[in-house]
């Protein structure tokens, strides 16, 4: 449905014949090349930095109190919607932001904010920083969910007994085993970062913006004929994302070659301390930045007038919250209902699919299965706006016009791949000997699932639920386009109000949006601890 308009076919707009005009229009857009390069590099750099930091951090974890504290601090960040984190970061680093206020006028002598281009810089640095804040927790959590099955403790113990220092030991013996397990989440990050819209609108360059932002503006252009060009742009975006993935794949090959030599070179201590501390410092920095950013949103949501060099507002007022309360309560319920239904539906589907795969012994390498999975990830990779416009048209043609059904279905499409990502590897790598043992004791397959597999995988399952809830709560376009705007969620309200630009109101809504999925996370973190309080070996999944 996005493909046809890209070649000039959309009867409602008088496009009856196929042509290449949309592509010619697209290529004539000023700044197109720059937009494409921006999207491409954002996707790769964001992912590379996030992966390296997460691996370094995990390698340096030595079970100290600081480590555990960082870990506990990072996880809830996953649930903070991207837009909320981006708003927080923007207010932190802007020339009139918290950092500038902190050092002014004392250190800088600034009575007025300096005229510096920090947020929305033309190179996309602030955009990448904002994305990294959010992708770090995602990759970290994914890695933590996979780690237990690799038994990293014993692996490193083995390496250490050969004289390797701890961080190097981890990097050399655990990373090569861990990487394949988190490869799909990494691909999802590349796809997301190269096609993201909301964060790019807040932090990204503007003249020109990234490709995805341009596409969105063409789709919303009052000049309806621009939709042809927008559809062509959506296909181009698909190509850019595919290129980024391909480049990453080639980088992987290169690093595997070089990395192999590094692993085998036998150095046991060179750079150990530096590596350990870099990971820790970077992740700490990112986490603190994110939390201070959220804190500044909280400040804003209760602020009276706030003059520039002042670190705190002149006064506080509850009126922004009071005002939002009635609308908040209505949309909160909708948000939760949609999120819970779509996440549970996704979970059931994923568990059923994985269990079926295990029982029939089919492996993902089989071509048919692989292509089915490729389809599953499509919503993550295709630009949302093009995909959803097509989907809306399809559902319309089928005569499905019940907004609540369409919204839940739309959410399911986006929640499903993430739940699958969070769960599939842990599921497939589950040691089959447990089940063999159960079978030898006469347990049926169903009973084995409920009594052995399910409880032992409770950690990854809860992580998957938390991820699913967070994704669903953060979805904007699917809710808006498929629900015809009739199902106001916290996110759709937040985005609509953000258009008005009042930081006070953005503060109220972004904070609510951020706190909501947090509940899911607290459950995901807390439940295994509660349930397995007396089983030492099963507490460590999160």
């Amino acid at each position: 449905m996005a493909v046809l308009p890209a070649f000039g076919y959309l009867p409602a707009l008088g496009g009856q014949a196929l042509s290449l005009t949309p592509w010619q229009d697209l290529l004539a857009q000023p700044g197109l090349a720059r937009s494409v390069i921006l999207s491409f590099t954002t996707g790769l750099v964001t992912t590379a930095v996030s992966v390296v930091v997460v691996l370094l951090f995990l390698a340096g974890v030595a079970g100290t109190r600081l480590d555990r504290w960082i870990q506990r601090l990072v996880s809830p960040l996953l649930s903070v919607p991207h837009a909320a984190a981006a708003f927080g970061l923007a207010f932190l680093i802007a020339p009139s932001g918290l950092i500038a206020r902190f050092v002014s006028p004392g250190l800088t002598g600034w009575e007025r904010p300096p005229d510096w281009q920090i947020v929305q810089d033309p190179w996309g640095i602030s955009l990448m920083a904002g994305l990294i804040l959010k992708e770090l927790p995602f990759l970290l959590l994914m890695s933590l969910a996979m780690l237990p099955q690799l038994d990293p403790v014993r692996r490193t113990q083995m390496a250490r007994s050969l004289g390797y220092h701890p961080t190097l030991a981890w990097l050399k013996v655990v990373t090569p085993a861990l990487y394949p397990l988190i490869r799909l989440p990494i691909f999802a990050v590349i796809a997301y970062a190269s096609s993201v819209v909301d964060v790019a609108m807040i932090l990204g360059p503007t003249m020109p913006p990234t490709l995805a932002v341009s596409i969105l503006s063409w789709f919303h252009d009052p000049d309806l004929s621009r939709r042809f060009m927008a559809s062509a742009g959506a296909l181009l975006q698909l190509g850019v994302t595919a290129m980024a993935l391909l480049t990453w794949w080639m980088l992987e090959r290169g690093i595997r070659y070089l990395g192999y030599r590094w692993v085998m070179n036998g150095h046991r201590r060179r750079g150990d301390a530096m590596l350990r501390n870099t990971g820790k410092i970077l992740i700490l920095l990112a986490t603190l930045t994110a939390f201070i950013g959220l804190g500044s949103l909280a400040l804003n949501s209760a602020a009276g007038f706030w003059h520039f060099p002042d670190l705190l507002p002149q006064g506080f007022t509850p009126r922004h919250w009071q005002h939002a309360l009635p609308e908040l309560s209505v949309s909160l319920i909708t948000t939760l209902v949609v999120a819970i239904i779509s996440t549970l539906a996704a979970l059931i589907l994923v568990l059923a699919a994985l269990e079926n795969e295990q029982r029939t012994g089919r492996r993902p390498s089989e071509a048919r299965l692989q292509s089915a999975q490729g389809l599953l990830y499509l919503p993550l990779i295709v630009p949302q706006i093009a995909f959803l416009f097509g989907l809306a048209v399809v559902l319309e043609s089928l005569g499905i016009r019940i907004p609540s059904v369409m919204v839940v279905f739309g959410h399911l499409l986006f929640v499903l791949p993430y739940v699958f990502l969070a769960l599939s590897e842990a599921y497939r790598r589950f040691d089959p000997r447990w089940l063999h043992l159960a079978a030898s004791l006469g347990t049926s397959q169903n009973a084995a699932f409920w009594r052995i597999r399910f409880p032992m995988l409770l950690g990854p399952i809860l992580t998957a639920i938390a991820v699913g809830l967070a994704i669903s709560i953060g979805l904007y376009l699917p809710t808006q386009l498929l629900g015809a705007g009739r199902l106001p969620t916290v996110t759709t309200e937040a985005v609509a109000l953000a258009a008005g630009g009042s930081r006070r109101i953005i503060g109220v809504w972004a904070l609510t949006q951020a706190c909501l999925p947090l509940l899911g996370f607290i459950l995901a973190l807390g439940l295994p601890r509660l349930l397995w309080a007396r089983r030492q070996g099963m507490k460590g999944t999160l």
Partner: protein
Amino acid sequence: MRSIFTLATLMVATLLAGPSMAAPAPDDWKTVLSEARGQTVYWNAWGGDVRTNDYIDWVNRQVQAKYGVDVVHVKVDDTGVAVSRVLAEQTAGNRRDGSVDLIWLNGENFAAMREHDLLFGPFARHLPNFSLTYPEHNPEVVTDFTLPTDGYESPWGKAQITFYYDSARIASPPRSIEAILDWARHHPGRFTYPRIPDFTGSTFLKQALLSLTANPEPLYAPVEESDFESVTAPLWDYLEALHPHLWRDGRQFPANGPAMRRLMADGELDLAFTFNPSEPAAAVDDFELPPMTRSYVLDGGTLGNVHFVAIPANSPHKAGAMVVANFLLSPRAQAHKQDITVWGDRTVLDVTRLDDPARKAFAATSDNPALPPRGALQTTLPEPHPSWMTALQEEWRKRYIRE
């Protein structure tokens, strides 16, 4: 069991009755009123302003009590989203059961929807309250960016470019387009305009062009009929001179009017403008702008326009939508809307021609010092033909977006 049966009957009845009730004759107002009762009108309107949202909520309570019509405000961040939706439905062949019943729009969006036959009408002239706008004396209520509305949209409110500044920092702000350039030279980095194609930013271009050109006449006809290059040359010369003195040296621009207001709030800018004359006063009340904020209009007047509501052709609740559009034009609703403590959006009614009790409702004036001085909004320049907006936007992007 019985309730399920009732529900099923109801659903079938709605399915059967819905489309047949969808297109009442607008001139038979009694039938419109009776058909409207019990309908739910999904009103797609920009939701970025708390005051506007509250006003729409008030409208809902009023029409519920008076006409038995429910209004649901579907908040969109961009009117284009609602246009998209109607378009998607039309693409799929949904001609009678659309999801948008009323849409807040003007200018380009109206022109586009009209061009593609996405609107229902003509209906505006049949609304009983429409006559209070006295269109024969106020052509702006039936003209949208020079295009005749032909009854396909009903006027709702008025906007006009209004400048604002912090009087604690600036004693005398520039009062003309030429003076702004001079002022910017002396206050580098303290003025900017929203990034094109934002509509407030585009309006600044049109305002500047109108002030700089010797002969504004070609601007009121389609752009194809004149020599774009020579007509707009003074504008590009002006911008070349202005940009180096703008915020971020003119290499970056705020996304829209509200973003520009936020820069004012942060003290990054000293001078800004808005399309809603009461926005600065409202922002002071909300602790966003400094208390000493003042507003004014350029000498010789600024661009102004009317914003409208329209009904998509595939709306299933046209009667309800018409009742709402009519209520929006009632003196009570218009006076309430103009109240600065409510929203401060100016009325489209011809107040001088209203009868006494109705006129009194508008008499209440506000002494809020952040409002434009009384009489400032008297001189309104009419909007050029919409094709100019598109052409200016294209040219601007060609010139200023980096390759």
